[in-house]
């Protein structure tokens, strides 16, 4: 039995964040290198790792994001190996090198605590009452992990003057320097999008990238359990 399962043993750590398979993230934790992760995303850990839900720093930075339930982010600190996952979503590990990226709130899995980050509500887009489209802007040099339902795709926005329009439910991340606006791109009586009334797309223009997942399922599974 060990032989059959041995192939799933973790590989030696070579970096702060690594994929274990497509859908699991392995983070090497060390003292002084704290991590912010989605609340409820921890599936396993080895070593001494402590979790602090709704930490004060988050409350300061993401005051708007904090609803009655608190911000969906916890602070992880300690020594050990931490395994994170989000209900089988694909995990994309990014090593920011003095870059910045804007991530849809539900697609953030984890990021280094020392990165600069902030939360803002996407302008021009009111989805449902109480559940707007929040995005987390992360900048600096360090590690970020995103989730995507299915293999994501990355497109260059800045090709010619053609704007890129994305279904907000499928949007994962984008370059923060892009101009964003909401758009209703349907003619009278035609509905696209989910067909339930919100036929919005987000229009991106400028020089940068847009990351999109092949699924319009943006439900926040980690949050439903609350």
């Amino acid at each position, binding site marked *: 039995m060990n032989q059959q399962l041995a192939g799933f043993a973790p590989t030696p750590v070579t970096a702060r964040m690594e*994929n274990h398979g497509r859908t699991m993230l392995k983070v090497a934790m*060390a003292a002084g290198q704290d991590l912010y992760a989605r609340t409820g995303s921890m599936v396993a850990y080895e070593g001494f790792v402590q979790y602090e839900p709704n930490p004060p720093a988050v409350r300061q930075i993401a005051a708007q994001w904090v609803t009655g339930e608190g911000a969906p982010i916890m602070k992880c600190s300690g020594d050990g190996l931490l395994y994170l996952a989000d209900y089988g979503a694909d995990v994309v590990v990014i090593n920011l090198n003095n*870059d910045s990226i804007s991530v849809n709130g539900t697609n953030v899995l984890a990021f280094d605590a020392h990165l600069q980050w902030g939360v803002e509500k996407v302008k021009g887009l009111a989805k449902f009452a109480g559940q707007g489209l929040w995005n987390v802007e992360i900048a600096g040099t360090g590690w970020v992990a995103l989730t995507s339902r*299915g293999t994501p*795709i990355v*497109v260059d926005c800045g090709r010619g003057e053609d704007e890129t329009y994305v279904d907000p439910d499928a949007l994962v991340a984008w370059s923060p320097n892009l101009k964003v606006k909401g758009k209703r791109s349907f003619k009278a009586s035609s509905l696209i999008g989910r067909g339930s009334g919100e036929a919005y797309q987000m229009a991106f223009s400028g020089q940068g990238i847009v990351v*999109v997942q092949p699924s319009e399922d943006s439900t926040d599974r980690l949050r439903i359990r609350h």
Partner: protein
Amino acid sequence: MAREFQRGHKAKISDLTPGTDLYVGVQIAAPGLTFDISCFGLDANEQLSDDRYFIFFNQPKSPEESIQLLGAQSGDTESFRVTLDRIPANIHKLSFTATIDGAGQMSQIGPGYIRVVAGGEEVVRYAFTGSEFTTERAVMLGDFYLKDVWRFAAVGQGFDGGLEALLKNFGGEVAEEQPAAQQPQGAAPSFAPPAQASAPAPAFGAPAAPQAPQPAPSFGAPVAQTPAAPQNPQMHAAPTMAAPMSPPAGTVPPPAPSLYGQPPQQPQFGQVPAQAPGQMPGQAPGQMPGQVPGQMPQPGMPSPYGQQAPAAYGQQPPGMPQGGVPQGAPQGGAGLQAALQPYRETATGQRWTPQNQQLMRVDLTMGGTPVLARQGSMVMYQGKVEFSYKGAGFAGRVVGNATGQEMQLMRCSGRGQVFLAEDGAHLHSIELQGDGICVSAENVLAFDESLQHEVRRIEGHGIPGGALFTMMFQGTGTVVVKTHGIPVVLPVTPTTFADCNAVVAWSAASQVILSSQVRLRRNAYPGHSGETVNLQFRGAPGNFIVVQPYEV
């Protein structure tokens, strides 16, 4: 501009470049490992029927010099020159492979690629990293294959057993292990250098260069490399082939395959990368349980696997990352762009381009006809695209009413690219050229408006909703079908049955009337709870059905 291929992508060479005198470069590297990169010239049965077309360091060219090994140059670990129009007719496929010489596994490799250069310009590149592989010790990187015309395919298929398994797969034979094969082969090492040294890379950049880079006599003379049968046993005894099989000496743990088992027993480890455990690239020093803290495993050794039992976890004292967390840059370099590079949009200049298994890109500027897509399946578009409501007609409304599932379409027209996906389902584009196909209405994602389509209804007792609705497409164009999971395509025989909930599509050979081809088989197993409604398919040979592993 070079095209970036993903695993599984294929294209005609003539679409990539007009030239037939191609340079194929392979880059593959891992710390502490060496690789043998070879080219197999296979016949129509994908067998290595002629050993002279196994091009490797010991046999650097084929008899008529249509395939030549050029050695490392311009950033490539190994390079070949392939002159497609000089390849003999019995060779139908050229498979480029890399095998690890010695111990090691493919998950350790860093970012590599196979690329095709014509006229000094790179036309296609398939990039890969170790994360796509696990314990494999050989990998088929890419193929040139003859299907009407020569085509290129990005393969990326690993083999657990190394070169030996690869050779067996191609019908070659491997001599017994001969670790000492070096000595009797005294002539062989002296033979390889001239090929590498004499590779005139600059002259070869021009695809028009008709002349082989070097005269034949210089090759034929030193060793009896002339195409002759007696050469074959000698080739099989070549050191490279023996080396991976020879047991590593000393403290080196047994190579990975012995632990993981061979592919037949455990195909899920070696062959399905999507499910493969997280064998991440780079075997750099790290902290593995069971190891003395601070001790550095030598890179390139799969020692953690060979020695460690999973149970060791429980005994390991916590606080594993001794001396800080490695912050090394990931494979492929640091930075946002590098991290997202594997997910880049791929544009092949065709109307329908699968971006990955779950996303389809349609370029409306190609062909000019609008596309009809299921409402809500658009995840992104670029350019000036208009979306308008398109009812599925009367029959479509019947579908909606009867099944409760609105089959509403939208019409995408204009100039631009539309990206379609739905719930992460697998997408398959089916190109119709005058033939017909029936697709279960729930599995239609999008299709060209140029196709004739009609909704048909298969009534039957016990079908949820009262009837099964299918859309029949005919004409010339593309249908995109979505399936949950990887489907199976079965030929239609007199005894082909399918669950009506799992069947996705079936061929409608144009001269056969559909209603007579499909017959509902009611209550095939009375009393059986779930599988009461099956469809039986009948048709002439050559027809097929597509079934998904998911019963809606």
